[in-house]
């Protein structure tokens, strides 16, 4: 077996798994399709229930991943093909199972080893497009770095936004670059690797479909999803943490949060609960109130699901200390008015219809699996459920094992969950990889010992060698 692991996805779970394996002395190839690592956690303002600054607790990890001698980080890359090597056709001649992986690395058009991230290129770039990292609330240039804390700290040229690469139409960024890091001729490359284990940590996206139509999500600037609101709250976000609404940059004084936007809605959305929304909506309410003390928050909820250490207390804090009005009922409609948006809902505890003229509406949109999940599952022979979440082999007893030997699962690709759960799962998946490697290594040593023994009673020899190998394996575990 090749004692290297492949981790697909470099959000918090992929990073945690990669670090655990790399710290144990094994090599990891970490593949991320975005230009920078950190996933959605990098976009968050604060985390619940501690209100830690998300960037502050994440950045040490991203930096460690970027610098770790045992981690080979491939950004802007996708796994395109996986070939299983079965026990009898192992390429090392020893007949060990593993995977032969082809990874497509898309061109960055900026040399990672040369770029100093000075930003001279972006200053001269004439193209302005929405910044994905800020969920479109701010603009970026065609050559850009997703965020100031991005790892790798390297610019990237977006070939779709650029005025033209083939033939070159502009060329200003290369002229401005003093270290000659820009290479317009960079091509996609296929990297081939052999690995002994794979962890899938492809994460989630937010539902933006049908059910959201009634909430004007697609059409009104003052209706946004939770991740957009995170960017508004974030000190490194487009407003520097100031709460202003997109339509006219006024401070919104009446803010409506709609939980279960698309979740728990078998008719028009997804039937499952997205699990983290009750908590992050309470967090949004608290953080908003801290920034706009004279503002009023309304939260429409179906019921509060705050299972977790300190979670219930956190929601109570939003209600009691920050005067958030929780209304049990669903919103039927959100529509534009002259000034902003009208929200219609029902308070099922009083049986009354509720109308709120809101300055800003924030949807706690349903979590759905990353769009790549089905393709990756198919490539690796892993099962997905009807929504595209990976199925564990046994959800109770082997929650991070996929059912395919050597392929493990972690993070929100398995289903909606919060950061602590995701991190714990990632460490669990990493531990599974380590035990797979060490068991195989112990077996290898046992076989070698057998081969070298030439004389005497073979049965006795084999037994004693087996015992030695077992104690050897134990000591390796202790060392790790």
């Amino acid at each position: 077996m090749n004692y290297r692991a492949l981790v697909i996805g470099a959000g918090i779970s992929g990073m945690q798994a990669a670090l655990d394996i790399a710290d144990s002395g094994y090599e990891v190839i970490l593949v991320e399709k975005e230009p920078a690592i950190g996933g959605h956690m990098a976009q968050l303002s604060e985390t619940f229930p501690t209100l830690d600054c998300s960037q502050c607790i994440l950045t040490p990890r991203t930096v460690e991943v970027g610098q770790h001698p045992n981690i080979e980080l491939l950004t802007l890359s996708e796994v395109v093909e996986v070939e299983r090597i079965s026990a009898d056709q192992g390429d090392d001649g020893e007949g060990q199972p593993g995977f032969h992986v082809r990874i497509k690395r898309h061109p960055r058009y900026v040399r990672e080893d040369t770029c100093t991230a000075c930003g001279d290129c972006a200053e001269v770039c004439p193209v302005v497009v929405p910044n994905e990292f800020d969920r479109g609330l701010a603009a970026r240039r065609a050559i850009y770095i997703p965020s100031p804390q991005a790892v790798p700290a390297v610019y990237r040229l977006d070939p779709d936004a650029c005025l033209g690469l083939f033939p070159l139409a502009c060329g200003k960024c290369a002229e401005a670059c003093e270290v000659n890091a820009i290479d317009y001729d960079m091509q996609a490359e296929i990297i081939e690797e052999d690995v002994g284990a794979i962890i899938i940590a492809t994460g989630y996206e937010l539902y933006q479909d049908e059910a959201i139509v009634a909430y004007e999500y697609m059409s009104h600037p003052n209706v946004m999803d939770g991740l957009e609101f995170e960017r508004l709250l974030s000190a490194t976000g487009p407003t520097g943490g100031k709460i202003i609404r997109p339509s006219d940059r006024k401070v919104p004084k009446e803010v409506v949060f709609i939980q279960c936007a698309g979740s728990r809605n078998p008719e028009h959305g997804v039937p499952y609960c997205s699990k983290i929304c009750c908590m992050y909506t309470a967090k949004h309410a608290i953080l908003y109130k801290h920034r706009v003390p004279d503002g009023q928050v309304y939260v429409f909820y179906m019921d509060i699901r705050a299972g977790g250490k300190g979670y219930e207390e956190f929601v109570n804090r939003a209600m009691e200390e920050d005067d958030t009005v929780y209304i049990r009922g669903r919103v039927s409609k959100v529509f534009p008015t002259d000034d902003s948006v009208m929200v219609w809902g029902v308070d099922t505890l009083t049986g009354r219809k509720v109308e709120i003229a809101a300055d800003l509406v924030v949807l706690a949109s349903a979590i759905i699996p990353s769009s790549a999940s089905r393709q990756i599952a198919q490539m690796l022979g892993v099962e997905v459920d009807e929504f595209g979440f990976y199925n564990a082999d046994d959800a109770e007893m082997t929650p991070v094992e996929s059912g395919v030997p050597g392929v493990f699962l972690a993070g929100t690709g398995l289903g909606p969950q919060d950061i602590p759960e995701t991190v714990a799962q990632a460490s669990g998946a990493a531990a599974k990889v380590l035990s797979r490697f060490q068991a195989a290594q112990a077996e290898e040593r046992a076989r070698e010992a057998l081969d070298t023994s030439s004389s005497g009673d073979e049965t006795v020899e084999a037994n004693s060698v087996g015992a030695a190998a077992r104690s050897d394996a134990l000591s390796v575990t202790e060392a790790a």
Partner: protein
Amino acid sequence: MGIPYFPGCTLSTKAKNYDRSGRAVAEALGFPLEELPEWQCCGATFPLMLDDSMALIAPTRILYQAQQAGDRVTTLCSICFNVLRRSQALLDRDEEMLDRINWFTEEEYEGDVHVAHFLEILRDDVGWEGGPESLAERVKRPLTGLKVAPYYGCLLLRPFEEIGLDDPEDPHILHDLVRALGAEPVDFPYNVECCGSYLIVKEPDVPKSLAKDIVVSAREHGADVIITACPLCQFNLDYPQRETKMSRAGEQLPVLYFTQLMAVALGLPEETWGFEDHYVDPRPFLARVANSP
């Protein structure tokens, strides 16, 4: 080719102008409405109790009459449409119920008449725009510049699983019609809100207050007229405008059946329009269109 037609009670009494304009439009477009030779009230509400076979007798008898005339039946009234379409859907999945009703009525309804709203025939058989026979091509007097607020109400669209005519949250079938007639559809947030329906009889203040919201919203969004496909919606939006604050000069909005607007656009004779039966007289609003050659 003619299409079997179930007018229903309201279109034979209070909403004759809907019936008259609908027949004229159908005739002009080449699918004359052939009234079922024998029919009675559809019951006007779809029974919500699962075992209420009694309330299904009336709609089943209408479907049986339609079966004698062809494989489909059309109606203009949203309420009749809702009752017939849902009854048909229920009989389609509940054979036992069908047998029970047939046993009682001593008629053999076979259970496969398609109930099509008039709008569905316009959309699927005639087509809005494009083809040489499409509605847009038949317009003789394009309603250019007229801002029309399509009001859908509830029964034309809901429940989607059984009605399936259009998206109940974000419908566009009347918008498409308005566009084909050369007018401009006006989107307003109340276009799928309830008008109060039968509460006009028992609790008239409820529909009056709902109507006020609906009409004021349509006006604020720039509408010249409201169109609807339901006689009860038409009444509930039109009638209260006589007496509420909305009735101040210049603040009224006429409420038309979509067929009336079509009759004007297709250049049909004035006697088919039926504008004299409205509380808010549509004629001044349509004057500039009607006077144009």
